[in-house]
């Protein structure tokens, strides 16, 4: 645990539409670590994901987030992406008229800061598509336009695979996936994960954690982490529910 942290979240407070959602959240992720943040509806899961990526609708009102030692405050979403931060969206936006291949090429060039030769890019794309069991026709479709829930999540994983971030935040990636699709997506993420990378899984249900194994599990309630532990904490949650943990946390 001596390696410098990738992500340090320090007493983070954030508002959306004037309501305080994050109320002092602390978390540190180091290279090679997989963390899971679990929380009930309304606990601040999506706010955390959006705030980390710099969604302008979310306002940081206190605390600090550092990525690779640098404060993220005031940094535009694209700068964060170029630094190596990635967010897999819970609800990816459809972009009619822009094909998956065109979008990926522009994104890859932007993040790597250089024009990747077309041939090299295509080779890499096809290889990553194979890894994620995505049909090649997929590349020519408009991004997320008319995609099923499963296709959208696979498209997100394909972007993750191509952009090779240092730190990936997966916001409810398991929602809307049937068990086969979940397994495919999880296999892909496991194959992409490496010792230099950090992974933060944000999820309501324990299901995803059967396939992507976190070393650290945190419970998010009312905008802050009320308990942290190992994988066994996820099982405890599954057995006893958020209410029990919330009750215990409020009396502690």
């Amino acid at each position: 645990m001596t390696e410098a942290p990738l992500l340090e979240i320090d007493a983070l407070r954030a508002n959306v539409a004037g309501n305080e959602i994050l109320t002092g959240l602390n978390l540190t992720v180091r290279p090679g670590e997989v963390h899971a943040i679990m929380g009930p509806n309304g606990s601040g899961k999506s706010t955390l994901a959006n705030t980390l990526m710099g969604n302008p609708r979310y306002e940081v009102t206190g605390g600090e987030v550092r990525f690779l030692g640098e404060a993220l405050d005031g940094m535009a979403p694209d700068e964060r992406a170029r630094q190596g931060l990635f967010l897999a969206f819970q609800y990816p936006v459809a972009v009619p008229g822009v094909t998956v291949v065109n979008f990926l090429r522009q994104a890859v060039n932007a993040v790597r800061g250089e024009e990747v030769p077309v041939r090299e890019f295509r080779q890499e794309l096809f290889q990553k598509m194979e890894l994620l069991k995505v049909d090649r026709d997929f590349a020519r479709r408009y991004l997320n336009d008319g995609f099923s829930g499963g296709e959208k999540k696979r498209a997100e994983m394909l972007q993750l695979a191509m952009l090779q971030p240092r730190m990936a935040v997966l916001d409810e990636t398991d929602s809307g996936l049937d068990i086969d699709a979940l397994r495919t997506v999880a296999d892909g993420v496991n194959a992409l994960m490496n010792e230099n990378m950090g992974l933060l899984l944000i999820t309501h249900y324990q299901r995803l954690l059967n396939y992507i194994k976190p070393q650290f599990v945190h419970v998010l309630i009312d905008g802050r982490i009320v308990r942290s532990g190992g994988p066994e904490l996820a099982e405890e949650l599954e057995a006893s529910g958020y209410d029990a943990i919330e009750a215990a946390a409020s009396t502690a």
Partner: protein
Amino acid sequence: MTSAPSTAASMLTPEASRALGEALGDGASVAGLRTSGAAALDRALPSPALDRPWKYVDPAALNLDGFAPPDAASADWGGAQDIEGLEVAGFEEAPEGALARLGGAVAVEDSRLTALHYAFLQGGVLVEAKANAEIAEPVRLTREFTAAGGLATPHTLVVAGPNSRLTLIEEYRSSDEPMAVLPAVELLAGPGAVVSYTSLHRWGARTRVFAEQRAVTEPNSDVRSLSLVTGGRLVKSHITSSLEGRGSSSEIYGLSVGGGDEHTDFYTVQDHVAEDTRSDLLIKSALGDRSRAVYYGLTKVGLGARRADANQENRNLLLSRTAKADSDPVLEILTNDVTRVSHGATAGPVDEEELFYIQSRGLTREGAVGLLVRGFLGEPLDRSGLAEGIRNELSALVETKLQAVGAGA
């Protein structure tokens, strides 16, 4: 809106029409239409106050009295006349047999403007695909107008014989002098014919355009059209597809990029007359500066048009706070037996959530706007089904205009 160059008595008189016909040595069909046009010159102009399709047009722009009758008309179609199964000819040389169908789709009596078109018709071109002819290469027709203060009246008559296939790309250009142009395009699709017609409106800064395009389909024919507007002070296009043949279809695509004070105006009619007819429509405008886009469109499903399938969509992207879009798609359905009839309209700036999503993948805000705008406009181009070379040419026209409007990288 600049008014006509002169407010003196109109030069567009029945006498001037007759003189033009004599000078051009009209054949029987053109002469007949010219006479009808001249006789209808006293019809009232369309009224923006009363006529819904004209609602947003500056009444002063409709007054064409100060314009001079057409001078020479330039139309160029390369070597297209030598292609087997294809006839391309100016009306002066075209066979009377084909010209007998002239005026069958765009009628003389529609309005004062169509009356003017026929009364002063000059520069008509016939493009005819013979029965079963499959014209592989797109036919290119280029028209250029330069007469300051002049009226121009290009006419394109497309006759697609039974089971023929034809792609026509018509390009309009004009200089930056004040000009009024009344183009008419008639698309007559024979049984089983497949026609693709594209018009490129690259008008000069002070050209006002009132275009009429009407397709009439025979059974099992398909007509697809695309209008790309990248210039012109006022470009008003009336595009109608009359689905008169059973099992026929129409696809109408349009896109415009507005800058400065430009006004682009589409009025469309998807007229389902026969059974088992299908129509699709997508018109998109990206609007910068103080430009304006108007869309008014009608999907008509007649009593006899059972199992009609119609879709109608208009989308407008506002790239500046001073740009404006008005959109009004309308359905008029007289039968209960339809397969599907749908319509939609939107107007607004680039969506912030879409921008955030794209920016989160590393593209700058400017780059993300640029990507969204190009994707937005790319959709009708994609759906037009044009060959890649032409598709790229059209994209380049769009790109040049977007750069001029300052819309992203």
